[in-house]
């Protein structure tokens, strides 16, 4: 049997070594020595066998750990398969190379809203983003850059502080308010199909905060309610079951100094929304409603 190593094999070998080296550099910070056992071996084998691999360039930061206090990027080489998403690749890197790699995720079907990330310079849900879609040419991109959402404080690695986002959501009285309920005990309120259709898109928000992160205005004005919260206000203001008096109250809330009038219709929120909610349009519609209701007072 020939012992000669072909150029291609050598290249592959180097790729594996590179991946392992990078992983070891990451591991240097840990207190406990953890054996990744067959997971790491499996990864090396899978990287070797894979027709294509993807390099993840991932933002790392941990305020507590010596080697991570200064923000940096780590690179992980992951075997690519058809249908693989950004979240799949991150989980692979975590489970096989470095279990301290930290990111939020849960449902992996675009409904829990916890894995909004900044991927190749744009806000996206990790679970919903196919690696293959990140490249114009067919097949996976060579390197994918993954960072935490911009304009938020980073807690650790890809995890950002969501408190400000939650506070803004809760500032718009985000709950149904009506004074009129049907008389019968088991009787629902009536709502027309048209009205349900009108609010439908606004009710799909999953609180992922991608829109808020993409909004230049929100970045510069910390008090701006932001697209998600205004959309939440829209969801109730346009619901015919709430009635006119309550609608007035809602318009007052969104018309405040840091409300709808801050929006400069840049459409970045609408562009990044993973649920295709026409956020900018909703904000514009509320502006019109607010103007109309003010005219009525005259």
């Amino acid at each position, binding site marked *: 049997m020939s012992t000669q190593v072909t150029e291609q094999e050598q290249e592959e070998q180097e790729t594996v070594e590179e991946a392992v080296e990078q992983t070891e550099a990451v591991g240097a910070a840990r207190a406990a020595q953890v054996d990744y056992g067959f997971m790491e071996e499996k990864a090396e084998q899978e990287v070797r066998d894979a027709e294509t691999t993807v390099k993840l360039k991932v933002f790392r930061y941990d305020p*507590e750990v010596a080697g991570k206090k200064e923000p940096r990027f780590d690179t992980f080489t992951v075997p690519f398969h058809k*249908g693989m998403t950004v979240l799949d690749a991150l989980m692979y890197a975590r489970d096989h190379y470095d279990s301290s790699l930290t990111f939020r*995720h849960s449902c992996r079907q675009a409904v*829990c809203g916890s894995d909004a990330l900044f991927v190749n310079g744009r806000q996206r849900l990790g679970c919903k983003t196919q690696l293959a879609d990140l490249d114009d040419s067919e097949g996976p991109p060579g390197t994918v850059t993954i960072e935490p959402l911009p304009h938020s404080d980073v807690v650790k690695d890809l995890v950002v502080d969501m408190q400000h986002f939650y506070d803004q959501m809760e500032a718009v009285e985000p709950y149904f308010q009506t004074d009129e309920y049907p008389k019968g005990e088991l009787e629902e309120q009536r709502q027309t199909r048209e009205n349900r259709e009108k609010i439908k898109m606004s009710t799909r928000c999953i609180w992922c905060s991608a829109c808020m992160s993409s909004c230049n205005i929100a970045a510069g004005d910390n008090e701006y309610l932001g697209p998600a919260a205004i959309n939440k206000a829209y969801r109730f203001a346009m619901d015919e079951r709430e009635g006119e008096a309550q609608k007035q109250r809602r318009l007052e809330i969104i018309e405040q100094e840091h409300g709808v009038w801050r929006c400069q219709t840049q459409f970045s929120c609408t562009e990044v929304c993973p649920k295709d909610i026409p956020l900018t349009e909703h904000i514009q519609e509320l502006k019109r409603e607010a103007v109309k209701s003010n005219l009525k007072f005259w």
Partner: protein
Amino acid sequence: MHEHDVIVVGAGGAGLRAAIAAHEEGADVALVTKLHPVRSHTGAAEGGINAALRDGDDWTDHAYDTMKGSDYLGDAPAIETLCSTSPEEVIQLEHWGMPFSREDDGRVSQRPFGGLSFPRTTYAGAETGHHLLHTMYEQVVKRGIKVYDEFYVSQLAVTDHDDPEDRECHGVVAYDIRSGDVVGFHARNGVVLATGGDGQVYDHTTNAVANTGDGPAMAYRAGAPVEDMEFVQFHPTTLPSTGVLISEGVRGEGGILYNKEGERFMFEYGYANNAGELASRDVVSRAELTEVNEGRGIEDEYVYLDMRHLGDERIVDRLENIIHLAEDFEGVNPLEEPMPVKPGQHYHMGGIETNENGETCISGLYAAGECACVSVHGSNRLGGNALPELIVFGARAGYHAAGRDLGEAQIPTGPSAGTEDETGLDTPVSPGALDSPDEDVAADGAMVDPGAVVESAVERERTRMTEMLENDGRNHAEVRQKLQKAMTENVNVFRREQNLKKALEIIRECREEYQDVAVSDPSRTYNTDLIHTIETRNLIDIAETITLGALARDEFRGAHWREAHQERKDETWLKHTMISWNDGQPKLYYKPVILEGEEKTYEPKVRSY
């Protein structure tokens, strides 16, 4: 240490409803959740919520369908409570603003679902769970209920009496994910566990990654028995590559299942000559896998679910979410081609044993929702029955914990309710024998000061976590993947004795390997490595109870199919499997099914669809 009247662990559908109920009752209530409430897995429920709301329907029909669907392993008092209460709970959700789909007259829409004799599944598009979750969270915000989000509850604070029925739960211990602190929560009145499912026991599941059975595992180790754990529901229509759920609503609206030959196999091969695609979930799941096993599957793996004939307009109106899921996660446009589907783990009928008031046998410890087994689903859950369970029994647990008198429970709980010990169960290994003492249930001695019980539990948990962070060892992910693979290969839709034994052996290995796990991330801040490591232990306990129960039950009932036992054996198996954790060992016993309700007595009949 934080202190409240009622502590609700988990903030999905059942947890939010329990918190609202306790608040209505005047209690100081707090929600403690490892996610943020709107991230909970209830949000992924698609199809709908069953309630007898219309003329021509009656809650007693709903109860009958549910008992039949359960394959006569449901308890009648619980089923009657579920079905008689769900209409008012659903209307209340509507009054809270939940955006249900609407009929032309403005009333909420209902549609047919599998195993139901009336189209009583109320829905909001194909995203009913999302709307239910958000609507209830809105009510929590409105009421100003305290939420501790991103707090991972890892242990219960329970007193140390020999008999679990003498034990009391005084609170919980949680890891504050942001700060890394280990903190105690003292519950003056009660703790409600509403931690949801445990689908991560399997590697092909519709469940979220967070669904690791934390509640049942904690309660089980604290001495509350788990019930009917062998009954795991496999949903017939999940996407093959990810396990993402394709709602039963697709079949409810008229979607058709085809095999490779283009045959409508539910009729063609006689799996369900009347109900066809709308037979009960266990029936459809087995039919699909039989097609695949007999060579009529596509790529030897899946079958087709076709909804194109419904027309674009109807699909967009009622099932729009499905178009996005199929496109995003399988690359298929269901308006133009059929969707590939196969069965995937979906729901756990079993869970922490409770009565119809949400109480466990441990005083002050309640459970509701998927983590609990009040036994409304028996051996198979009907589609559309999970969401009413959440709100009906979530509310009851919350009310009772806050002090409302719900009357005497008819369902007995605890080891003393058992009638029969199972001895001589032939298992290949002695399961569960390994356990480190620090994970034992309770506080030291016979402490009576509740605060001290919580403090002591906090101290033990701090020690355990520090050891995991400082000791050397192996990565949990390896153990978890091994466990998931073993369960999928051996304790799946079809069950054979030798496979169940094989699974028990591997579970035992996982338990041994788990003794060596360590956390590589030294940080206290947002240490998901630590959380996943603790979760993995919970998965091992859950997997063991599923497999033990399955091995012991040598009959074919509901979701539980046994190769060598192809019939339902009512004379010996009309009983609930109970497993309790005694001295580091699971102990198996049984308690009878209650078929006698206030309304009627349900006679077991042959289940045909």
